[in-house]
């Protein structure tokens, strides 16, 4: 195997399956011309997995599409497998396999029919099909489901079918655009093992883009993109090695990790701080070991141990150089002291709630409660029933059975005024796309009855606090995703709610924006706002006070993050991560899953 040891400066060779030379691409949105890629020189080597990493809007999808001939570059040249991707795209397309972000499965066709269609499109001769299909079905585990409609498959199975369709005629080069987004950890691991196998057994070259930074470490070679520019290329270790001596694991007895993290982030010379397990991971700018007392004078008995760097540390520190942190300090403005601290009152109660759609149970008899001032997380893959639960809590959907109450009332039956106490941010970006930032804020403020000076002040507060001041006249559809998400949160907070519902707020948002986001949630929680949040990022569960792990409409486990991880402790895994815990929970429940 061509080793990852080679440096970042290797030049394109015979062995390169993708070569980009001086490639630029521009898009026009509204009246603005945006550079998706700027003068990129890059290559992808044969026979390995190359990861394309970069925050949202870095140009990953544009690069993928240009490599398949779906977009033509505005400048420069793209050569795929020795063929010019722009002029000979038909010839080139016969030798590649491409799986777009939303893979185009025909949902009203069965698994087998989808595979046959792609076999036809790729002109796989009839006699070669049975063995190939069998191989793919075995590999993806879709064998038992060949006559099921693709629309009825789970998210993970859909992705695997998409992959199988891309592979009906083994391509020399496989391009996968964010294949693991929104897929549960079990399916994610399976997808990766398939990709490894393809490279190993069929000698395929793979270019894969991903938003999960831990996946970068599974690639042989990593290409780092930011704002349309290439920041670096090399094996993952070549990124993390230079971070040696910058990374530590910190904990302060008797101090909440969330608070500790927040405090650390505000210290000078700190590049990054994230909650990781029961400790806080700290990345310093310099290599000089920090003095605990100098770092946080208030923290007593701080334990600080150096740890091995990982790819994410390098990624954040590279990005931080180009984008300064925008974490505003303590005072979060209008969300004030009506509510202080955690209490034992249960502000949200869910008892035996279930929800049927036809004969399909989206939520099966779930029971949990949320204390006032808590950050409560619902963790699970797409389709686990998290959003349905949320919609029932917000009064958007009546439960088929069971009881639920929010602040003592069922929002579906309560008078309209009761809704003034909650803030809701729904899954997709759901603000009025052709209204400007300010118009959106004004509208949502007014619907909550704000007016005159209060309205003006709150709009001003939101623009400042969420760093939207420079964009207030831009229509919200044109905002980058991270900004959209900030605006959505600002709209949900305009009226100073007691309870905040956030449905998948960090989906598709880059790691830096996610850090900023969680920082805001922490601050709100410190001020006594109850926050309920859903996520499919396992590591984000660590930020929650307690959480419910959901799968296929059921709650698999309920408790603090530590309690949930404790369930997965075994001889092999003395210190399981949340993802390990999730996978072990799923496999424990596997017999129950099969029947559903």
């Amino acid at each position, binding site marked *: 195997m061509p080793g990852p040891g080679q440096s970042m400066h290797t030049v394109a060779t015979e062995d390169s399956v993708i070569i980009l030379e001086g490639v630029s691409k521009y898009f026009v949105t509204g009246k603005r011309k945006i550079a998706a890629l700027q003068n990129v020189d890059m290559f992808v080597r044969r026979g390995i997995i190359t990861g394309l990493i970069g925050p949202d809007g870095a140009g990953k999808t544009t690069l993928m599409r240009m490599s398949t001939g779906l977009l033509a570059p505005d400048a420069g040249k793209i050569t795929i497998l020795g063929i010019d991707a722009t002029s000979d795209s038909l010839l080139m397309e016969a030798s590649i396999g491409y799986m777009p972000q939303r893979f185009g499965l025909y949902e009203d066709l069965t698994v087998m029919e989808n595979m046959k269609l792609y076999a036809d499109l790729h002109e796989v001769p009839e006699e070669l099909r049975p063995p190939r299909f069998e191989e793919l079905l075995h590999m993806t585990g879709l064998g038992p489901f060949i006559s099921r409609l693709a629309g009825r498959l789970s998210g993970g199975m859909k992705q695997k079918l998409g992959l199988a369709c891309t592979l009906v005629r083994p391509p020399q080069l496989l391009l996968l655009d964010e294949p693991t987004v929104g897929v549960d950890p079990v399916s994610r691991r399976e997808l990766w093992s398939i990709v490894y196998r393809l490279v190993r057994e069929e000698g395929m070259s793979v270019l894969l883009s991903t938003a999960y930074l831990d996946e970068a470490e599974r690639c042989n070679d990593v290409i780092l993109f930011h704002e349309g520019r290439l920041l670096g290329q090399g094996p993952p270790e070549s990124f993390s090695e230079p971070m040696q001596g910058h990374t530590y694991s910190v904990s302060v007895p008797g101090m909440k990790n969330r608070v500790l993290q927040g405090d650390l982030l505000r210290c000078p010379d700190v590049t990054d701080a994230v909650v990781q397990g029961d400790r806080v991971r700290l990345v310093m700018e310099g290599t000089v070991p920090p003095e605990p007392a100098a770092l946080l004078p208030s923290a007593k008995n701080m334990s600080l141990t150096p740890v091995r760097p990982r790819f994410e540390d390098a990624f954040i520190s590279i990005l931080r150089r180009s984008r300064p942190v925008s974490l505003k300090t303590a005072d979060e403005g209008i969300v004030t002291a009506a509510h202080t601290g955690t209490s034992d009152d249960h502000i949200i109660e869910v008892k035996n709630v279930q929800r049927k759609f036809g004969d399909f149970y989206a939520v099966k008899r779930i029971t949990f409660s949320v204390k006032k001032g808590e950050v409560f997380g619902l963790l699970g893959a797409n389709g686990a029933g998290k959003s349905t639960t949320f919609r029932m809590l917000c009064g958007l959907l009546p439960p088929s059975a069971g009881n639920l109450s929010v602040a003592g009332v069922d929002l579906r039956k309560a008078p309209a005024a009761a*809704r003034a106490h909650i803030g809701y941010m729904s*899954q997709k970006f759901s603000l009025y796309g052709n*209204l400007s930032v300010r118009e959106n804020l004004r*509208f949502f403020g007014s619907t909550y009855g704000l007016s005159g000076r209060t309205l003006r002040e709150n709009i001003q507060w939101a623009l400042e606090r969420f760093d939207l001041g420079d964009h207030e006249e831009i229509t919200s559809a044109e905002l980058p995703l991270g900004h959209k998400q900030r605006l959505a949160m600002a709209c949900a907070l305009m009226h100073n709610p007691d309870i905040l519902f956030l449905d998948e707020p960090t989906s598709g948002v880059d790691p830096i924006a996610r850090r900023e986001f969680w920082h805001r949630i922490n601050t709100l929680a410190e001020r006594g706002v109850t926050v309920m949040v859903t996520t499919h990022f396992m590591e984000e569960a660590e930020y929650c006070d307690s959480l419910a792990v959901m799968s296929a409409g059921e709650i698999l486990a309920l408790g603090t993050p530590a309690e949930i991880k404790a369930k997965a402790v075994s001889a092999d895994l003395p210190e399981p991560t949340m993802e390990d815990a999730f996978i072990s929970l799923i496999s424990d429940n596997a017999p129950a899953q099969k029947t559903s």
Partner: protein
Amino acid sequence: MWRRILALTIKEFLALLKDKRSRMVVVVPPLVQLLVFGYAATYDLKNVPYAVYNEDTGKASRDLLAGFRGSPNFSEVALLSSEGQIEPVIDKKEALLVIHIDSRFSRDLLLGRSARVQIIVDGRNSNTAMLAQNYASTIINNFNTAWNARHGRAGPPAYVTTRAWFNPNLESRWFIVPGIVGLLTLVVTMMVTALSVAREREQGTFDQLLVTPLRPLEMIIGKSLPGFLIGMSEATVIILAAVLWFKVPFLGNVATLYTGVFLFLLSAIGIGLMISSIAITQQQGLLGAFLFLVPAIILSGFTTPIANMPPLIQELTLLNPMRYFMVILRGVFLEGMSFHLLIGQFWPLAAIAVTTLTAAGWLFRHRLY
């Protein structure tokens, strides 16, 4: 309450009109359609193309044909010389009508016998055929009266004098153009409202609206106002165009007309919002609007009289707000109908509006998906 409604209305307007393309969809097609349809939708025949096969050589036949030549309704396209030429000239649609005068025509007339003239009409469009036939009858009747007078003969013992009230020259444009007010107002209102909720559901913003303290009544008013104001201005423009451009007489009372416009808009908005809140996606909303629009237009009496429909379908049209609005429009424009004569049209519109708006308001929150 009014502040929230105002905020919602402003938002709806911004969402609708900020985008240049959707602004165009609301403004341009109705105006183009008004002009094109105002001229195109007519039953009046001008210049009926006709051919003559005259076997008679006398003066009487020439006098009769002079009546056709002198009429503004007819224009001669061919003089035929044999019976065999009649068929192709009609088949090819060169002539709509052939006048065949046989060789004994003048002789019969001078002998005091009834002379015969054969009129052959292309019946492919039965309405056109009937009109042409009526025009021809009128000319022949005039000839008869003149002949009797000139030769001192007694006319028939009784004769018909016809007067048309409200539209003495029987211009069908007077009938169609007020109908277009209803047609285009309905189309625009449906386009605006039928998608307003469906679009928000699809984009997820509707959930966001439902969790705010907006009450159903406030949402209905906020969602209705833009469609109402746009429909109102659109209707006003078309009414003005009908009077000033198409010169359709306006005999009635403006207030009576606008009572009708008001109630019609409310019922159209109610139906639009109801379709919109049943639909999950914009496509469904559009399809729903379309499936309502097509029968609503065709079965409204806009082009063909409701009275000509079979009883079952006539009863079905009672659910159609367009039906009532057509009566109001034409009544007020051409007949100067008074308010109390139209009460029978107003209350069904009001009933449709109340029912559909209530249903829409209920569906906002109770439509499950």
